[in-house]
């Protein structure tokens, strides 16, 4: 009850005209930032920090503006995933798998609406989780040492098989490629640069946003250049089916379970520092495929394959605020930026924040509820506008995609070197598409491989190289068991489904390649 009273006070703080205006501005800017490839939530928040400073905002309004941008970007990332097969930011990666096929089938409207709804559900319940469970959840984060993190990432990779391609070998190759790319940079455990060729730009490794934009957006532009003039794709733009703007009730009912599971998984992943939204949406998708994909429709435009990762990544955004507020440890890149902002406003996040600055915490949480409602109200009607992107002839759309990619990537680091790396990834993406190698596992390798390796090395340093330290706690044993089940079960069970999967594969006109 005390909590609810505090939350009530929070609403009192958040419900001023200025704060509502800031939340609305933040939500709108965030959605756009999220939708633009190359600009993710962390850049969005970073870009707006000077605005908060120059408006002279006190702590609570400044935080309301920036977290609205954060939540907005998590919503917006899905838009380009679904419409263009280009993830707007890294957590929206998994949404391409079913979202884009849905759009190709003329269900773009439904895909956007259902994913908007899933985003709302994920963020809404995650915010409640933040209200009631923050102190307890901190203890959960403390159960995870390096060995447990390593087991968690292994679980993620173990469930990768067959997720994104009909050809397991190609999936594995793509993941290995991603892992290899993740090795570039200075090795934190020895201080030795690896695969950097004496080039200082490689010392911090490859920024995965550069990899995503290169692999997805730039390779799309190359494909367009290759096929230009053939079959005049631009001409039928007006005939593209956009789908309904309101999802049918049956679809909502069908995806309810997916949203619930996605929310749970995403929230937990968000709470763990170092796991974050990408892992949340990824595990949400792969678990959902294991649980719900009885007919092999995942990957061909199944609404549940859109709902689960979107609920997952938005729930993770809420979850990531738990360690940030309660421990002062950022669970993701974006919360790292928010943390810096808090410090700049002379507020020290940490175990005492809830006691020392209750107005900031509860005002922020109330603003999250309000922002989330605003985002739902803003996103559903806008679906009709967003889908019109599909009607833009590629000869106009593709140059715009290229331009946004270049500006976005240059904006992150201010370095032309990253642009060259991006183009290199574009060429690589084009080649991989020609070879029918899925791109999603490459990014997952880059995203998760780095953390996976670091935690293995940490665990080994602590245990003096004793490999059994990896299986020493009940939690890590549980995670390993899940990983083994996830790895072994599908081929065994899959035998019964194989004919059906082969069928859908042939019928898969929606293959993005």
């Amino acid at each position, binding site marked *: 009850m005390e909590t609810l009273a505090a939350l009530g006070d929070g609403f009192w703080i958040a419900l001023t*005209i*200025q704060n509502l*205006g800031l939340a609305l501005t933040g939500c709108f800017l965030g959605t756009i930032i999220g939708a633009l490839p190359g600009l993710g939530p*962390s850049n969005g*928040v*970073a870009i707006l*920090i*000077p605005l908060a*400073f*120059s*408006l*002279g*905002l006190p702590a609570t309004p400044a935080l309301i503006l920036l977290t609205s941008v954060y939540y907005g970007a998590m919503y917006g990332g899905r838009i380009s995933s679904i419409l263009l097969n280009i993830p707007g930011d890294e957590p929206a990666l998994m949404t391409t798998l079913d979202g884009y096929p849905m759009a190709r089938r003329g269900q773009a409207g439904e895909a956007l609406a259902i994913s908007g709804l899933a985003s709302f559900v994920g963020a809404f319940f995650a915010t409640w989780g933040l209200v009631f469970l923050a102190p307890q959840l901190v203890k959960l*984060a*403390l159960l*995870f*040492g*390096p060995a447990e993190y390593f087991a968690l990432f292994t679980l993620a990779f173990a469930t990768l098989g067959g997720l994104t391609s009909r050809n397991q070998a190609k999936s594995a190759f793509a993941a290995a490629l991603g892992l290899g790319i993740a090795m570039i940079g*200075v*090795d*934190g*455990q*020895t*201080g030795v640069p690896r695969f950097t060729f*004496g080039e*200082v*730009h*490689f*010392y*911090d490794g490859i920024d995965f946003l550069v990899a995503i934009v290169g692999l997805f957006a730039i390779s799309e532009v190359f494909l367009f250049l290759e096929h230009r003039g053939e079959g005049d794709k631009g001409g039928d733009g007006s005939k593209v089916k956009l789908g309904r703007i309101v999802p049918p009730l049956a679809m909502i009912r069908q995806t309810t379970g997916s949203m619930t599971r996605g929310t749970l998984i995403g929230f937990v992943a968000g709470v763990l520092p*170092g796991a974050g939204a990408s892992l949340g949406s990824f595990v949400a998708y792969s678990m959902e495929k294991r649980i719900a994909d009885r007919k092999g429709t995942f990957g061909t435009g199944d609404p549940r394959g859109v709902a689960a990762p979107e609920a997952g990544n938005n729930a993770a955004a809420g979850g990531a605020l738990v*360690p940030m507020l309660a*421990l*002062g*440890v*950022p669970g993701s*890149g974006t919360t*790292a*930026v928010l*943390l*810096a902002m808090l*410090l*700049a406003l*002379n507020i*020290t*996040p*940490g*175990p*005492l*924040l809830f006691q020392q600055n209750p107005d900031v915490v509860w005002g922020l949480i109330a603003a999250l509820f309000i922002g989330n409602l605003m985002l739902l109200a803003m996103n559903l009607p806008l679906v009709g506008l967003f889908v019109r992107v599909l009607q833009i002839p590629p000869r106009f759309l593709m140059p715009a995609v290229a331009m946004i990619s270049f500006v976005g990537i240059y904006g*992150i*680091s*201010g*370095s032309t*070197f990253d642009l060259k790396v991006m183009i290199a990834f574009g060429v690589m993406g084009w080649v991989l598409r020609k070879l029918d190698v899925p791109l999603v596992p490459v990014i997952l390798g880059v995203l998760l491989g780095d953390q996976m390796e*670091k935690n293995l090395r*940490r665990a080994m*340093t*602590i245990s*003096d190289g004793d490999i059994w330290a990896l299986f020493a706690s009940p939690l890590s044993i549980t995670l390993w068991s899940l990983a083994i089940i996830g790895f072994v079960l599908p081929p065994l069970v899959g035998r019964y489904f194989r004919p059906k999967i082969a069928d859908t594969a042939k019928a898969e006109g929606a293959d993005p390649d």
Partner: protein
Amino acid sequence: MDILVLTRRALVAGAFVAALPLATAFAFEPGNTECIAPANPGGGWDFTCRQVGKTLQDLKIIPGTMQVTNLAGGGGGVAFAEVVNKRNAENNLIVAASSATSTRLAQGAYPGNDMSQVRWLASVGADYGVIAVAKDSPINTLPELMEMIRKDPASVAIAGGSAVGGWDHLKVLIAAKAAGVEDVRTVKYVAFDGGGEAVTQLLAGSVQAFTGDASEAKGFVDSGDIKVIAVLAPERLAGDFAAFPTAREQGLDVIGANWRGFYVPGGMSDEAYDFWVKAIGTVYDSAEWKSIMAANGIAPLDLRGDDFQAFVKQSVDEIQALSKEIGLIK
């Protein structure tokens, strides 16, 4: 308050500042000033740029706002190379730096660059190192911890926020050397992504000790979750940390200051350099900066111009010697 009113006020204030003819006595007039933070938003360098930029603006030392550019990469090496190679003659540019910069310069981690290629401007404070253990740890003093390491290096894992060879690691090694640990290479150091993650792992019980900066530990010290066994400062810190003994008090002469400051392009004119030394000095002396320092656990370290240049030179030499000794560099 209405947002419109706020915006208008900001605009009016901005116009006012812009219209002020800068009646400073310096021959150099700052124009569109810029501060490069050689890392992504959210880190210490970004903080230094933004806070100093904001204070410079509030004190009306510079016209308008200072633009903060995040030029990440290579642990600051990308920005260093950019300044040396492309922006060597700029007068309106300052770059945030810290002990991490001098550590990497000392270890040759910025290929082809060294500290003489830029001019070192001034420090704005220091974050002194702390060594801490969990609140229920049997260890209570730094000599006790070092004794455990000396007897059995494998029994103590120490977590820190920097990579191996980085400043958090070196601080422990300096302490171990002072405590008579013969082969400091046996000290078990586990690198995490930032001090926050390292402290969390101390609370989780994965490691036995934590090495980091006072500011990183502050939240956990206030809540009583960790026990600081030594502060690596010349004398006790002010405020919350006053209760904790220095390493010196415990008979180990170890000082680990993570200074924060700036360098400027090597080709900057003397007039501009003098302007910036005075400007940063004015910030340092201001009440605004004092309160920022207090709130963020930054301790005083006031070195300007030539003094700062000599200080950086000395710390680069020291780190070089230590890194050679432990085999990090040849």
